[in-house]
């Protein structure tokens, strides 16, 4: 198989996850690169070497795509996909990005669950006192209100924290997309 076809097929395979229209638009640049290089009398091997490893190119494209997606979707799923796209960028990211991301995301999730649990406990106490009556209605109401207020306070705090977490993660990922490789010698 010709070097150029092999290169383009490899790049296309690596970008399977990208919607077809976007992928075609990107691939055209590399297709044109081979075309123009040939016009300038370069061999396909030289052109491929100049472009560098297709895996590196695919990683860079995937990461910036995921970051743009995460910014517009504003969902945990989108953000996580963007974080995991750094996986291809090397071991450093596995240890210093994906690891801490999972840890902090777990803590945030746990705190949200606690906020929900407080709300359920508060409402549950009141309902229970009406139904069965372990507490008097007065006791149940004060206990319930304390639990509900804690839940609301925690919820408000978590809302801010979650937003910050999103912003910081995206900022770091963007910084990562701006790192440029040196010339492959």
């Amino acid at each position: 198989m010709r070097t150029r076809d092999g290169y383009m097929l490899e790049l296309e395979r690596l970008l399977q996850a990208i919607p077809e229209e976007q992928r075609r638009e990107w691939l055209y640049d590399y297709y044109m690169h081979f075309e123009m290089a040939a016009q300038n009398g370069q061999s396909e091997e030289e052109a491929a070497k100049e472009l560098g490893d297709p895996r590196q190119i695919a990683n860079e494209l995937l990461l910036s795509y995921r970051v743009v997606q995460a910014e517009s979707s504003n969902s945990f799923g989108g953000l996580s996909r963007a974080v995991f796209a750094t996986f291809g960028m090397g071991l450093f990211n596995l240890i210093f990005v994906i690891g801490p991301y999972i840890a902090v995301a777990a803590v945030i999730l746990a705190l949200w669950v606690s906020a929900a649990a407080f709300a359920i406990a508060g409402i549950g106490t009141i309902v229970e006192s009406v139904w069965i009556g372990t507490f008097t209605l007065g006791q149940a109401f004060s206990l319930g209100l304390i639990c509900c207020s804690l839940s609301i306070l925690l919820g408000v705090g978590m809302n801010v924290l979650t937003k910050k977490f999103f912003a910081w993660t995206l900022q770091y990922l963007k910084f990562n997309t701006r790192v440029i490789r040196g010339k492959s010698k």
Partner: protein
Amino acid sequence: MNIQFKKGVLEICVLVLATSGDRYGYELAVKISEKFEVAVGSVYPLLNRLTQEGYFSTYLKESTEGPPRKYYQLTPDGWKHMRTLVAEWNAFTKAVNEIVEEGIRP
């Protein structure tokens, strides 16, 4: 050149090169890789990212030789972004130069 210097600087160069008229990818990639010794392959992902961020729009134009070329055109947002980056760059290099000049004075 030190690899740290290249971060971000390429973005400014690509944007500034496109101010004097629409460019096709190959032109930008080769011009920049010659000057900065970066892999040609890393210029295209940069162009793609700037396009996704809305700083470039692209269109195809027939060429007398070979298949149509993909041109990159600065959007109004791109112009604004370019001016911000250039202003930041100027302030930054001015500060660095002042310190360097003071430092090497005997």
